[in-house]
């Protein structure tokens, strides 16, 4: 049985914190389980909540090499798994012609390791050093292509007809991320642990802001986190992501803002929200008397005075 990477769940959490990734209980717990059960993790969630970053941080934490496979429509075997180096094979055949070697010799020769171009998946399997494999945006490939991944995800092996089955030298930690643009196949889901990364809660978001934006005051970070939380509760086309929160906090720092008021919020809303209708809606909610009625009306004139 191989060495475990982590001892306890809190250890994972602390470790991730040390590399500037603030994990909550669920994230740390599932990373820990993935290591123990030797299963891949399928990470889903809204854009900009740190799905890819999780894989990067775990790689950094364990001192492993990160191998990344970016998925796209039309991804195939030769881009994901392996490919034979045709040009080199041709050269080899031509070179053979002069000495009278037999057909069998050449055949075994040109289908050997020397002529194999490894692609991310095979590379992760064959690596001697510890690796973390990140299969990014897996929902972009077609359902049929998903099947490519199944063998490697369940058995950590790759079958190459000419060479036989290549088994993993060590079991890599595998992360798959998905933006949920389509339902992934049951077969894929079954092989993975499922982790849904949602927007962080108030405390965590504040901590993230404090950690990633240098010199920000506690009060401003708190206010930023609160405003973003309130925004996410509105029905928007696109709710602000964590990275947008950070951008906004940095902007406020650059502008030398100490405390956000309506005018600053209105002036910088376009950093948090990317649709005009969303901005209009947020402005309306935050400045109008809106549904809150009397409570707002009394607050309104006081500020203008």
């Amino acid at each position, binding site marked *: 049985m191989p060495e475990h990477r982590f001892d306890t769940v809190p250890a994972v959490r602390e470790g991730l914190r040390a590399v500037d990734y603030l994990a909550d209980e669920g994230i740390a717990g599932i990373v820990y389980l993935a290591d123990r059960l030797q299963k891949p993790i399928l990470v889903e969630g809204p854009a900009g909540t740190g799905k890819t970053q999780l894989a990067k941080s775990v790689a950094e934490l364990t001192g492993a090499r990160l191998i990344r496979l970016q998925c796209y429509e039309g991804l195939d075997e030769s881009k994901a798994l392996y490919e034979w180096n045709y040009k080199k094979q041709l050269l080899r055949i031509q070179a053979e012609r002069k000495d009278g070697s037999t057909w069998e010799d050449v055949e075994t020769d040109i289908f050997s390791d020397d002529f194999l171009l490894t692609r991310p998946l095979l590379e992760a399997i064959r690596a001697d050093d510890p690796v973390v494999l990140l299969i990014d945006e897996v929902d972009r490939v077609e359902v049929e292509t998903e099947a490519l991944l199944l063998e490697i995800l369940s058995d950590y092996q790759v079958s190459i007809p000419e060479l036989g089955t290549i088994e993993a030298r060590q079991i890599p930690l595998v992360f798959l991320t998905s933006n949920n643009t389509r339902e992934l196949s049951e077969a894929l889901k079954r092989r993975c642990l499922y982790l849904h990364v949602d927007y962080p809660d108030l405390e965590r978001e504040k901590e993230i802001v404090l950690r990633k934006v240098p010199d920000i005051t506690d009060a401003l970070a708190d206010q930023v986190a609160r405003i973003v939380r309130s925004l996410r509760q509105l029905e928007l086309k696109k709710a602000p992501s964590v990275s947008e929160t950070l951008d906004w906090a940095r902007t406020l720092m650059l502008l030398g803002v100490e405390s956000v008021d309506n005018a600053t919020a209105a002036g910088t809303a376009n950093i948090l929200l990317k649709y005009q209708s969303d901005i209009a809606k947020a402005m309306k909610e935050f400045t109008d008397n809106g549904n809150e009625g009397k409570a707002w009306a009394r*607050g309104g004139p006081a500020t203008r005075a």
Partner: protein
Amino acid sequence: MTPTETGAPAAPAPSPMLELLAGFIAELRQAGLPVSLTENLDAMEAVKHIPLEDREAFKYALAATLVKNNAHWRAFETVFEVYFSLRGARYAVGDEAEGDDLDHDADMDAAGGGDEDGKGLQGGGGGEGLTPEELAQLLYQALLDGNDGLMRAIARQAVKRFAGMEPGRPVGGTYYLYRTLRNLDLDSVLDKLLTQARQQAAEDGSPLTPLEERLEADEFQIRIDQLKKEVESEIRRRLVADRGVEAMARTLRKPLPEDVDFMHASREEMGNLRKALYPLTRRLAVRLARKRRHGRKGPLDFRSTVRHSLSYGGVPAEPKFRYPRPHKPEIFVIADISGSVAAFARFTLMLVYAISNQFSKVRSFVFIDGVDEVTRFFEGVEDVTEAVHRVNTEADVIWVDGHSDYGHAFEVFWERWGKEISPKTTVIILGDARNNYHASANWVVKEIRQRARHVYWLNPEPKSYWDTGDSIVGEYATHCDGTFECRNLRQLERFVEQLA
């Protein structure tokens, strides 16, 4: 807490645990979650690796192995609460037969929970001796400070005091919830909290800006929601103690968002449906766009191939194919928006407009007993929800009494817009065809069908109710190309996909 050491193969889990898990998984399946055998085994394996005393960790371990779709999370959580609510020291309540014990336990916990946050209910089992005023004051204080422990204690005390729960009483949890919340009167507490915050700020010399006030209000609202959740789970815990796990799980079983019936959805379920709709439309749009891109293989275009072969001296070196140009249908949606089916119409309109780039044109009409075109509300609007809201408030759809009259609505429609239906048009009619015994005017549907490419009827009622009472969907169905039962998002999605 010592984590189970599993460097060596773990000892076999104690069998009560296995049994419990098996029951749990069976209940998940009953609730509609697809749990496969491998996932079942994974869950059993996973729980060996985590400290069982840690309830949260246990929950996440089960969730990671058993729930592979975020929309199913709520269903999972409910089942989890029911199955494991009585396990673990701090969650225990006494046997229902010993009423005293139950009270005692709750108080102990109340004190314990409070102490953790450094602010206990004074005097240990003090919860018992408090007057209602004192309890209200404590509640106010807890909400003001956001003191979780105290809030939990108050939730328990409130349930014990106000819910009036008796063993074996055959009423649902919502009844107890209602009674407890009514007595706590959270709305006026919220008002009080806001006033307090405002005064506080004014005293400090910096009155709250609207923005700050909004943030305060949101903060208190969130705390109050949390309190409600505590009350709810306390009630559930007591009900489970009273009635047993299986019975409770059965009564609490809720359909998954995609299976919720449009016509009988509660307000909360409606909210969830709306949330589920957006990702669904995005998925649908991606899928349809892909279908369009990939379905491009046509037969050989002989004429074009010969024409191009001339530049190769007559050798057909470059075969040309006839690429099918998938037509983009023009859509007319005619929707009944009377009370009984309004929700269904709303969802369908939202879905159709969300993927409107798949159609060359979408026009929408709504009716009750009068009919009105509402396309204008959707034009140039990014926010479909807003547009739908305007449809409901501004459209002119009442002719006489505001009870559905399909016959009159269809006649008017035919008169005013009938000529604009062309062979490219697909007409979708939404409604339950409950016509209040008016004339059906089904000749209109027949005429429409002769002009249009297709006519489909979507009915949000279960098929077995069709043509009962004043439903005359059968009369219209004879003139439609298809009549579909469309009770939930799943069925709606299937229809729309096939349409585009």
